[in-house]
């Protein structure tokens, strides 16, 4: 067992509204795990807390590698995330977006390599077009690429199939299957198809 994410009595309060209370779980690699629950139950909030984008009001989230706790920087580098409210830079092209995220993460990837990544999601012909001209499904595929670019051991997906056609949904399923073979995938969803992508981890609002 190498990678582990431990949620210890996590709670989140926005102003005076309690969104999450006393959530505990241990997520281990390899595998895919599903957080489910009705709209407004706190799935996205919990995923953002796991990603380190939100600080829990109570409890803590620990990232462990071979039992050793990771620093905040190591934790950030270990995570890739796709969420509906995480946007890309719309005036920039698909290639420029990938180039930026690669450089920001310290990856020395050549344009030819980035174009190969775009080929994987059938976006190579649109590599030099601004993201603003993309359909929502194309943006979703590009977001998934930016999340996978640094080959993170932990992949967090918030409603990954939203706005995707059959081919897009198959790509998501394939990515989850591949990633779950060696790392951790956590999916927050209500979609009946996506509920079957992994083992039930937490059901919120139950």
């Amino acid at each position, binding site marked *: 067992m190498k990678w582990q994410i431990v949620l210890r009595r996590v709670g989140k309060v926005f102003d005076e509204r309690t969104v999450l209370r006393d959530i505990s779980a241990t997520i281990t690699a390899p595998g895919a795990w599903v957080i489910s629950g009705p709209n407004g139950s706190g799935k996205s909030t919990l995923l953002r807390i796991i990603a380190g984008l939100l600080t829990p009001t109570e409890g803590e989230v620990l990232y462990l590698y071979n039992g050793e706790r990771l620093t905040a920087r190591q934790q950030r580098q270990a995570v890739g*995330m796709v969420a509906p409210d995480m946007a*890309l830079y719309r005036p920039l092209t698909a290639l420029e977006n990938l180039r930026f*995220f690669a450089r920001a993460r*310290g990856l020395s990837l050549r344009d030819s390599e980035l174009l190969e990544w775009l080929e994987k999601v059938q976006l190579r012909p649109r590599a030099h077009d601004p993201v603003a001209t993309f359909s929502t499904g194309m943006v979703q595929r590009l977001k998934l690429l*930016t999340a996978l670019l640094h080959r993170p051991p932990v992949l967090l997906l918030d409603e990954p199939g939203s706005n995707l056609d059959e081919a897009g949904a198959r790509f998501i399923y394939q990515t989850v299957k591949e990633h779950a073979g060696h790392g951790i995938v956590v999916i927050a969803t209500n979609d009946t198809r996506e509920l079957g992508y992994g083992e039930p981890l937490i059901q919120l609002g139950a």
Partner: protein
Amino acid sequence: MNRSSSWAHEAIAVFAKDWLLELRTRVALGAVVLFAVTSVVASGFALAPPSGVPAEVKAALLWVVIFFAAVAGLSRVFVVEEETRTADALRLAVSSTGVFAGKLAFNAVLMWTLCAITVPLYLLLLEAPLRNASLLVIVVLLGSTALACATTAVGAIVAKATMRGALFGVLSFPVALPPLLVVIHATKAAWLSDNAWRVAAGDLQVLSGFMLVIVPASVLVFEHIWSE
């Protein structure tokens, strides 16, 4: 694939990305340069003939124009990430120090561009005296960098606030006023004094000291603001 991510690498990536976005959209550059050029030209016509205007007033007017032009464009570097919902992707890819340093570098270059256009135009239209050109260049360089530090620091603090506009104005006053007063005094020295370097030496030290204090303090505060 090689991975070497430090805050300096991250800052360079953020800086390059912001300039690419700016060249594509011209939002900040357009607002800043348009405001400054309009103000300078309007002042040139309104104060004609400019020879009757005291150098103190001309120095103050120059920096008031530069400051308000800076506020019009520089304060938006962090807000735009929140408004376009790119902030979370940036948070996951780049450390808070890398983001702050990249945004500060972007604002500093924007300020230097603004000054490169505004100051010569101002000298021409308002017939500003010039006894010591090399000192003026140093004063403008340090002054514009100090104002970039001040506006970046305040912009970072208010980025996630709901009443950003009002808060930016309130916080800018105490943060930007000290370097503004000092740089006006140093500009006047470059224009009027025979021993300008000696007169402005203290001002240059204060500007350098201001930046040495405000930048590390802003980085520390920004780490907490940016992470939530």
